[in-house]
């Protein structure tokens, strides 16, 4: 490589990354400074948690969840990790390896759950047994198990690695449908209510590209390959559309999502409270649910009774059908 022309905006050292939305280049050190400040601002602005809180980080082996765990530990927070083995063939085996190595190298406390071992099913089998698209079965399982682990472990908050691109894509999908219930609940922090633990997304001010860069300059190995089942889902197509806009208009994604939080979310706050509704305790597991038996217990009952389905058998189905993840609370 020949000499790089661009310099870091802060120190004038050779830059490692250009960030058009900031109209600036940064060296590795000042890229990290930017990321730290953006995360701290999100935590502070949305009153996510404080130094005394015990945090449970949902880790997948991908860049975002490992980055947020790394950033929280570096900032002095008490953060343990929880990894769920989803049984998505080699992808899950590889992802779990990255998480375990990350935790071992830093001597962090990692909790693990294996769907097949602990609950008698995996995501491909759950998808086939319930008729849910794989991303839906996956999301339901993860949400329920993270909630339970937080309650059982006495954690104050569950943290996920959702970033600006994730939230902008979900907002885009919810807006296309004008799904007011989902829009009203699409917030970077959700308080503990009705038996659900508090949830927070400290990376909402940072893009996927910035998080991948964080991992690279920090020497964090993560699973780069895409989940084979997620390929082709709506969430990805929304991200591609927004990145096409971003390429023409840097800062558009941040303006779209952060503008929603600042100017639209307050108008929907009353709707959010009204939509919360009354919840019962699941008669089987005790988790909060709108019915008698929660969706997770129904999924486990169906999926654990079925012979294991190889991941290859759901691949052909998941692409063309578009998958889930187009909307999320």
């Amino acid at each position, binding site marked *: *490589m*020949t000499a*790089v*022309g*661009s310099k870091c905006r802060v120190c004038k050292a050779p*830059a*490692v*990354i*250009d960030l*058009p939305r900031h109209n600036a*280049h940064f060296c*590795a050190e000042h890229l990290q400074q930017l990321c730290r400040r953006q995360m701290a601002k999100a935590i502070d602005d949305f009153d996510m948690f404080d130094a005394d809180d015990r945090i449970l980080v*949902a880790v*997948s082996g*991908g*860049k*975002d*969840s490992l980055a*947020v765990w790394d950033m929280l530990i570096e900032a002095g927070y008490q953060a343990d990790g929880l990894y769920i083995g989803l049984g998505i063939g080699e992808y899950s085996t590889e992802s779990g390896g990255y998480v375990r190595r990350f935790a071992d190298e830093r001597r962090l406390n990692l909790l693990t759950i294996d769907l097949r071992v602990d609950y008698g099913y995996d995501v491909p089998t759950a998808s086939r047994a319930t008729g849910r698209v794989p*991303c839906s079965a*996956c999301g339901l399982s993860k949400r329920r198990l993270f909630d339970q682990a937080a309650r059982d472990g006495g954690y104050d908050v569950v943290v*996920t*690695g*959702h*970033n600006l*691109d*994730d939230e902008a894509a979900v907002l885009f999908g919810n807006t296309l449908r004008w799904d007011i219930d989902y829009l009203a609940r699409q917030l970077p922090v959700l308080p503990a209510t009705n038996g659900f633990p508090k949830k927070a997304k400290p990376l909402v001010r940072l*893009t*996927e*590209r910035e*998080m*991948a*860069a964080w991992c*690279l*300059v920090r020497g964090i190995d993560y699973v*780069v*390959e*895409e*989940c084979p089942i*997620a*390929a082709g*889902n709506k*969430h*990805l197509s929304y*991200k*591609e559309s927004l*990145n*096409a806009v*971003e*390429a023409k208009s840097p800062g558009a994604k941040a303006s779209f999502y952060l503008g929603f939080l600042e100017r639209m979310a307050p108008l929907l706050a009353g709707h959010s409270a009204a939509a919360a509704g009354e919840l019962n305790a699941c008669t089987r597991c005790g988790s909060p649910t709108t019915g008698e038996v929660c969706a997770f217990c129904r999924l486990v009952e169906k999926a654990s009774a079925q012979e294991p389905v190889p991941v290859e058998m759901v691949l052909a189905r998941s692409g063309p059908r578009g*998958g889930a*993840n187009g909307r*999320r609370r």
Partner: protein
Amino acid sequence: MKVLLRNPRREIEVDGGQSVNRLLDDLELNREAHLVICNGTLVPGDAVLTDDDVIEVRPVISGGAG
């Protein structure tokens, strides 16, 4: 120069003497959705690549969440 691409993983040979941004444009890859690593180091869009460089174009978009 050798260029490693992902999803699916594959390697292609490309002429050097072009910038990172030009490489991404030629490959029809969105700059917002990729990072470029040259000889193991992250490089910005205006870095000029040479024939001897080993390049990885790493996608940063994930379909799940976190």
